[in-house]
């Protein structure tokens, strides 16, 4: 873990919960990590002077200088490749891919090197780096700005895949990603950037940093890595979800309750590593599952979840498992995206189609 310094910011910021955006939580996570550890640096396109097109890196250059948070030439492979070299040489880069689909030029760097270097070198070269990717739709974005690309990365051994669904997790999981000894692809649901929750970031900072100090490997045992969380308890059916779809799943659970069905909602948080135990536990409890994700369903994370339920929890099931995902189409144009994205109605339809009689 990093050397500890007293963070002046900690004293200044609020000591009690207040409405906080997802974006502010991410921003604070980066500035807290940078404050604590000189090797943490942030770079990408427009992240410096502008503070990022979504303002997630707002103020970091002003606070930490142009050596710690800076703009790069407009080239994603270059950003990822340079970050890997910096990680080889003692830094902890946090890079921003401006949008999901704009990360594709970096895929060779990510798949062939960032994911494989530790294995290639028999563990001698570790790459502590974070690739932040704003992803998903629901924001009226044009083509190339709304992809749910997590399956490509999740299919690649050597990468860890985190995706927070709450403001608290945005802070805690980004801190954890930055401290991870392994490369983490950090998927930020862009439709959540401006959602607010009542959160005390100062308390979260204390919680994270004291937990991290208690453990030699901060990721193990205390964090979100490999740990799904039940965000709503239920007994009749499990909604399995992550990232941008968790809020949809919660709304569907609310609607189902009005019909007298008790739905449990599981937020995966960490797609790699995957929490098989939590998945099995909720399916054992309810006997029914619907997997909800924005990404197109064919050969997706949702497919994997269904396969794992079938392999590990078959005898707990009272019904075939259903999926509510995006259609197998290129992401549609803004005026049509509502028809593509998983909706409460579509989830309730799936709920009706489950087998309810013994």
């Amino acid at each position, binding site marked *: 873990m990093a050397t500890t310094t007293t963070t002046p910011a900690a004293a200044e910021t609020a000591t009690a919960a207040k409405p906080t955006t997802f974006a502010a939580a991410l921003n604070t996570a980066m500035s807290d990590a940078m404050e604590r550890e000189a090797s943490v640096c942030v770079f990408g396109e427009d992240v410096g002077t502008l503070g990022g097109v979504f303002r997630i890196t707002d103020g970091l250059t002003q606070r930490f200088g142009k050596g710690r948070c800076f703009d790069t030439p407009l080239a994603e492979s270059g950003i990822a490749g340079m970050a890997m070299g910096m990680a080889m040489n003692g830094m902890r880069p946090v890079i921003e891919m401006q949008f999901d689909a704009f990360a594709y030029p970096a895929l060779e760097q990510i798949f062939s090197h960032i994911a494989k*270097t530790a294995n290639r070198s028999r563990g001698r070269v570790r790459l502590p780096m974070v690739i932040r990717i704003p992803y998903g739709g629901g924001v009226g974005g044009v083509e190339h700005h709304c992809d749910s690309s997590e399956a490509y990365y999740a299919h690649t051994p050597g990468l860890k895949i985190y995706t927070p669904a709450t403001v608290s997790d945005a802070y805690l999981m980004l801190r954890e990603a930055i401290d991870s000894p392994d490369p983490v692809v950090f998927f930020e649901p862009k439709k959540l950037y401006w959602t607010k929750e009542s959160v005390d970031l100062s308390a979260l900072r204390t919680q994270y940093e004291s937990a991290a100090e208690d453990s030699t490997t901060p990721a193990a045992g205390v964090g979100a890595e490999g740990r799904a969380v039940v965000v709503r308890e239920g007994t009749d059916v499990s909604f399995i979800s992550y990232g941008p779809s968790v809020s949809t799943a919660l709304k569907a659970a609310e609607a189902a309750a009005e019909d007298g069905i008790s739905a449990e909602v599981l937020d995966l948080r960490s797609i790699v590593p*995957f929490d098989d135990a939590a998945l099995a536990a909720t399916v054992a409890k309810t006997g029914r599952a619907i997997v909800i994700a924005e990404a197109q369903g064919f050969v997706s994370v949702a497919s994997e979840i269904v396969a794992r339920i079938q392999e590990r929890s078959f005898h707990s099931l009272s019904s075939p498992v259903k999926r509510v995902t995006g259609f197998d189409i290129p992401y549609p144009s803004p005026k049509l995206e509502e028809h593509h994205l998983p909706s409460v109605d579509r989830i309730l339809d799936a709920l009706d189609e489950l087998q309810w009689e013994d």
Partner: protein
Amino acid sequence: MTSDTAPGSTEQGSHIRDTSSSFGITPEQYMLPAAQQIRMLGPDGRLIPEEEQGTSPGHEYPIPEDDALLAAYEALVVGRRVNDQNYALVRQGRLAVYPSSHGQEACQVGAALALGDGDWMFPTYRDTVATISRGVDPLEVMVSFRGDWHCGYDPLQYKISAMSTPLTTQLLHAVGVAHAAKLRGEDTVVLAMCGDGATSEGDFHEALNFAAVFEVPVVFFVQNNGYAISVPLSHQTAAPSLAHKAIGYGMAGEQVDGNDMVAVLATLRRAVDLARKNSMPLLLEAITYRMQAHTNADDDSRYRESDEVEQWKQRDPLQRMRTFLTDRGVLDENAETRISGKAEEVAAALRLAMTTEPAMDPLEIFDHVYSAPTAQLREQRAQLADELARNQEG
């Protein structure tokens, strides 16, 4: 900690202006390669007169001292022996594959000897001789070509990246290593190697551009051996030379006779010195030739004439250096005996090692993917362990 060593902190291009004015030439004269490739030894190994070496103001390269030249010769002899031993081991089925640098050894040796201990090297799959010339045990390098593991040496210990199989992806890692060092105020120089075909890749462009924009000390060293497997350079580029590409990025480019050990070492040393002193990248193109096929799986008679290979044999880097050093009185019979004895020792060790089956643990395939195996990998490891145990019993 705040830090301002990023673009915008110094005036962009000021290093190029300062460097060129220190030579009394314009930035364009400095960035463009000299009118002819830098060459100090004729094809026959005789030192050519200074006025014919291709040098001009700002493009001057002092001949390295005799000790360094003798060390380079020794590395050439050992490197050639390693190339030829490995070629034989492939034919005997002891190695899965070996991309030989036979004919390119001057570039290989120059790359290693131009660097300081704290510097980094980013080699490709054809740069075995460069890695062993920098001190890696040949047996550790051969781990990958024998098929035991993808990389057999510790990149951090030697400051040599794993030999890259994808083309030019490693050049960006080189830029990152240099950038990290620069942010910490260290004067590390990084030598980033690639071939002529690789200059067509997008990451070649991105790496040179990033290096120039961030003003980091990376020497891009292109071994132009004429072919990308079968495709000649004329199909890769319409540029006057690969060295000319440098000016497009705002850096200096130079061309050197890659089969002239003296010129290669002289140009690389100066490039490394300038990169370190002025914190800026440079591009050096060495004109050389791959004397053997791309790998054992390739048939070079399908794309080039044997006449061409014969002509390049007349410019063999090892023979030229031997003639030059003998003429200069640096190499005598004693030294020659000592050096060839050392080369034979290295070859014998390779033969012995490659005829011994390595002890391998199949379960290791799960161990390094993450810093700690995930629950899923622990399950899969247990499955393989169980299969292995049952195979043993059966």
